[in-house]
């Protein structure tokens, strides 16, 4: 048993940076996959729906960890090239969390009132314009909270990469634990680290959510002081009930 030295602390701090990078890159890939697959699954051509549905089922139904091993160990055998562990991890996390995300996109798009699309047709917008100008902006506020959940899931899921030797928080923790033999402090420290990262992400996503809601006329979204919030609950409830996406559109 020995103290955690500055050098070992640096391992953990460096791990935070790696975890943040992993989360950001994987989230970017997952977002692209989620929108591409989610929208493809609402396409009018059955073949597009079929292919994207197959992707969704396969990647949702396989473990991210096994996928990571597969990309890292099996792909080189088949194709003769080897990804660095970091990018293999990003690929595995992005592809599988993107599959989960596609369900969020599909659900939110389906939840926009059909009458909104009809109004778009009546104004002769092309299908792409309807999607870009009418459907997605209205679906977006509904996607943000479940995306936040998924993002935090992915942050925590990124710990899987430590098994492949990518130096994230969890990998740093096991090194420090090996060096010092102290499990309790080390795992308590990284528990707090993950929590703080998740909390920061949640606060960030709240800002995104407020912004998204303001974009469909569901303001006011300004933060009030604690006193105002305690007294002004009614005002906020009114603002919330004031509108739903596609409000006044149900036939």
């Amino acid at each position, binding site marked *: 048993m020995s103290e955690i030295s500055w050098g070992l602390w640096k391992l953990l701090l460096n791990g935070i940076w790696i975890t943040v990078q992993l989360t950001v890159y994987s989230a970017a890939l997952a977002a692209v996959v989620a929108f591409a697959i989610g929208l493809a699954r609402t396409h009018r051509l059955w073949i597009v729906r079929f292919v994207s549905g197959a992707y969704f089922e396969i990647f949702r139904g396989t473990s991210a960890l096994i996928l990571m091993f597969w990309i890292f160990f099996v792909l080189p055998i088949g194709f003769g090239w080897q990804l660095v562990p970091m990018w293999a991890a990003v690929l595995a996390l992005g592809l599988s969390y993107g599959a989960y995300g596609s369900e969020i996109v599909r659900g939110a798009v389906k939840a926009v*009132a059909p*009458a*909104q699309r*009809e*109004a778009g*047709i*009546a*104004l*002769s*917008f*092309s*299908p792409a*314009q309807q999607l870009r*100008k*009418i459907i997605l*902006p*209205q679906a977006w506020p509904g996607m943000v909270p479940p995306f936040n959940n998924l993002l935090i899931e992915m942050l925590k899921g990124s710990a899987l990469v430590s098994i492949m030797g990518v130096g994230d928080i969890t990998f740093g923790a096991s090194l420090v634990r090996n060096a010092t033999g102290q499990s309790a402090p080390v795992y308590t420290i990284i528990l707090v680290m993950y929590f703080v990262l998740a909390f920061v992400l949640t606060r960030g996503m709240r800002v995104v959510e407020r912004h998204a809601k303001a*974009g*469909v*006329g*569901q*303001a006011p979204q300004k933060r009030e002081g604690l006193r105002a919030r305690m007294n002004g609950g009614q005002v906020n409830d009114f603002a919330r009930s*004031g*509108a739903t*996406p*596609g*409000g*006044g*559109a*149900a*036939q």
Partner: protein
Amino acid sequence: MSADSSPSKETVNPAVDGSELIRFDKVTKRFGGNTVLDSLDFTVSSGKHVTLIGPSGSGKTTILRLLMTLIKPDEGTIKVGGEYLTHEDRGGSLVPAGEKHVREVRKHIGMVFQQFNLFPNMKVMRNITEAPMHVLGLSRDEAEERARELLDLVDLTEHADKYPTQLSGGQQQRVAIARALAMRPQVLLLDEVTSALDPELVAGVLDVLRDIAHSTDITMLCVTHEMNFARDISDDVLMFDAGRVIESGSPEKIFSEPDHERTRQFLSAVL
């Protein structure tokens, strides 16, 4: 309602020579086993205001939705301005129309819905300017100028910068009318546009529509339960029952001395 701006500026119409603008030719529409329109024939001349009346489920709204290409006919053809709406003439044979053809023909048609269907993600101004800019290719300045004229027509100039959810139902419906007119359609379809409104808001919307009907030569097809309004604005009234036109004529005739017993029954129930 302000009638002082000249609404005729807002709508460019084809020459109103009474020529045929809309033709339904043996149009049948079924929903499941239910035949909503049964081999329907009718025509509307350019510039006319036609009101469709009849009991619920008689197929009135279906006609408007067919014209707006929100649904497709099961049989028969529809022509607008001499062009097939639902079909394309390819090498002498009629084939179902492609998306591009449909979009081209329906540019001449505008629709106002019962539930307004404004885009909640756009402020009033953008609701009106978006399609003229991105479908008709107007510049932002042109589109905004057109929108301001129309907002003046529907008496909502000061609300241009609000979201639809910040307006009353009557105001939203007037924005929806302005939005449809901004495309300068030849045909305006009005689908029970006051049915979702609180009673005290109905008059404002009808006043705007009366303005438009009397001061422009836009062709209007109107499904409504507001019989006084129908009497006011219509050149022709078509009485529907069970997917067929059972009687048509001037509003004076239909409302005062209908030929058909079914029409009499219907009118005595709604008037």
